[in-house]
C-alpha cells in the first residue's frame, strides 16, 4: 500500500468510522449510505488538511468515491505513491 493510500484510508476512516479498510476502498457516494453532502465537505476538509492541498469547489462533485480521491491525491502528490 502506498503512503498516499494509507493516509487516505485514515482520512476516510475518521469520517466513516464504521467502515472496514476494504469497505473504504470500495466506498462511493452511491454505495455508502452515510456519504452525504455534509460528509463530502468534511472529507474534503480532512484530506486538504492531511495532504496540505486545496480542493477547488468545482472538483468536489467529481470526488464521489475513494478511487476518485486516490487519483486526485496521486495527481497532486505523486511523491507519495
Amino acid at each position, binding site marked *: 500500500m502506498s503512503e498516499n493510500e494509507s493516509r487516505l484510508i*485514515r482520512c476516510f476512516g475518521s469520517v466513516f*468510522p464504521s467502515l472496514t479498510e476494504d469497505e473504504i476502498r470500495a466506498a462511493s457516494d452511491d454505495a455508502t449510505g452515510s456519504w452525504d453532502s455534509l460528509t463530502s465537505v*468534511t472529507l474534503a476538509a480532512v484530506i486538504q488538511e492531511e495532504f496540505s492541498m486545496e480542493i477547488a469547489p468545482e472538483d468536489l462533485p467529481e470526488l464521489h468515491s475513494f478511487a476518485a480521491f486516490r487519483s486526485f491525491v496521486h495527481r497532486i502528490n505523486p511523491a507519495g505513491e
Partner: protein
Amino acid sequence: MKLIDALELLKKPVAKGARSFHVILACGFTPLHFQTFLAAELQERLPGRRVLIETGLFGDLAGNIERLQTIAADAFAVLIEWSDLDPRLGIRGLGGWRPSSLEDIARSTERSVLRLQHALGCAAQRLPTVVCMPTLPFPPLFWTAPDQAGSIELQLHKVAAALAATLTEEPGIRIANMQLLDEVSPLSGRYDVKSDVVAGFPYRLPHASAVASLMSGMIERTQPKRGLITDLDDTLWEGILGEVDVDGISWNMESHTHMHGLYQQFVASLAGAGVLVAVASKNDSALVDRAFARSDLLLPRSDIFPIEAHWSRKSESVRRILDTWNVNADSVVFVDDSPMEVAEVKEAFPDVECIVFPKGDYQGIFDLLKRLRALFGKSFLTEDDALRLKSIRNSGNWRDSGEPESGSSDDLLRTAEASIVFSQTRQGEDAREFELVNKTNQFNLNGRRFGEQEWRSFKSDSGAFVLSVSYKDKFGPLGTIALMLGRAEGRVIHLSAWVMSCRAFSRRIEYQCLKHLFETFGADEIAFDYCETPRNGPLREFFVQSFETVPIPSFRLTNEQFSSKVPPLYHFVEVKCSV
C-alpha cells in the same frame, strides 16, 4: 488539534451508561468543523461523559440564542461574528458598501447588539453561557486606506467591546479572551473566504480549532491552583541574602533586576486574589526577617504564610507548608531558581507543579508570569478569597493556643466567642458555594462534584435545600466554610452532599450542622448519601469517633443517637433564612 484528530477522538467509544454533557451552540454560520472541534475538545476534557452538541439555524444568531436557550443543557456556547451584527459586514450578502451605507450599518449593528444583549442576559439566567466576540477581520468595506482606521470601523469595535463589557457583568456569562486568541490564532490566518462563500463556514481549520479550545476551556474549567511556594534568593529578589546582606538584594531598574520586582508585584496580585503564598528558602531566618522589614518590597510580609527559612531540604519545607495550609500537593506550585531544588521537591511531591525561575531571562520571567496566571486564574473572586490567608493564620493561633487538632478542649471552645450563621441561598449565584462543593476533599460526604448547570438545577429544585454555613470567632472570620445539600421527606432528611473546609476542623461545627438539621426539619433521622473516596477519611473518622458508626452507603443517624453523643456546643447560632 487537526480535524482528523478531532474526528478520531470522537470515534472512541464512551463507557456504557455515561451521562451526557449537552452543549447548545449558537452561531450565525454553518457550524460544520467548529462543532466537531468543540465536541472533541470537550470530550477530551470530559472523558467519562458523552458530549452532545445541538446547533441552530443558519444566518440567525439572535434567533438561535432566543430559541435554543429553552433547551435543557449543561452549557450554552455563543459565537458572534461581524456579519451577525449586520450581514453587510460579511461577504455572503451583497447589501452595498457605499460610503453612504456605512452610517446605516453602524446603526443596524447597534440595534443587533441590543437584541443580543437582551437574549444573552435571558440565556445566562437559564444556562452557564460562554461567548466569543467577533474574531474575523472586517471585509474591505471602509473607504479609508487599509493602514488608516476609519470612524465607523472604530465605532463598530467600540459597540462590540461595550457589549462584551456589559455581558461580563452578568453572573452566568464568560467572555472569551481575545488577547489569548490573538496569540494562538493570528488574525491573518483566520478567515477562509472560499469556505465562507461555498459552504457558509468562514473559519480556517486552525482557527476553528483555536476558538473551540478556548471556549471548551471556559465551559469545563480545570480547578485553579490554590497555593504558591516561592524561593527568595535570585527569585523573589536578585542576590544571595547571606552574601550581600539585606541592602544588597535588589529588584529595580538601576540594578537591572527589575524583573524580580515584577515577579513580586505579580505574586502580590495572586495573594490579593486569595492564592496562598509561602516561602521555602535555604537561608538564615533572622536575615530573612530583616529582609522582609524592607519597606520597598512589593510583596509584604503580611501576604505570606508561612515562611520556611532554614537549612533543611526544600522538600521538608514544602511538606510543612502543605500541612499548615492543609491542601493537597496537586493544588500547589513551587518556584525556585535552582533546577536541583526543583528536582528534589518534584521527586518528593510528584503532584506539585514545579517550575524553575528563569533568572536573568527577561522574556522567560514574563512568560513565567503568564504561565502562573494560567495556573491560578479563576472565573470570579469571592469575599472568602480575601479571608483565606487570614483564617489560616487564625488556625495557627488556634493551634498555638495549645489545643490538639482533634477535640479542642471545652475551655477554649467556650471562650472562643464563636458564631455560626446558617443561610439558605436558593436564588441567584453564589460563587463561593459552588467553589466549596467542588474543591473540598477531606470532609466530604461522597466526593460528588457539580457542573454549573447541575448546581443551578439543584438550587432551583423547590423540594431541596442548600444550607451554607459561615463561621467566625475571636480569632477572626473563616467565611463560608460548610455546605449541606439535601431534601426532607417526612421525618427523614436525605443528605446528598455535605462538605466542610479543613480550615474549620476542631471547632465542633460539624456537630452544630447536624443539630441544625435535626432541629430545623424536626427530623428523626438523617440518611447520608455516603461514598468512600481516596481523600474523605476525616469525614469517616468523625462518624467513627463521635458516633461509633462506620459509615457505609446510605447509612442513617437517628436524633436519639446524635443527642446521646453530641458534645457541648458553645456557638452562637444565627439562621438567616428559614427552610
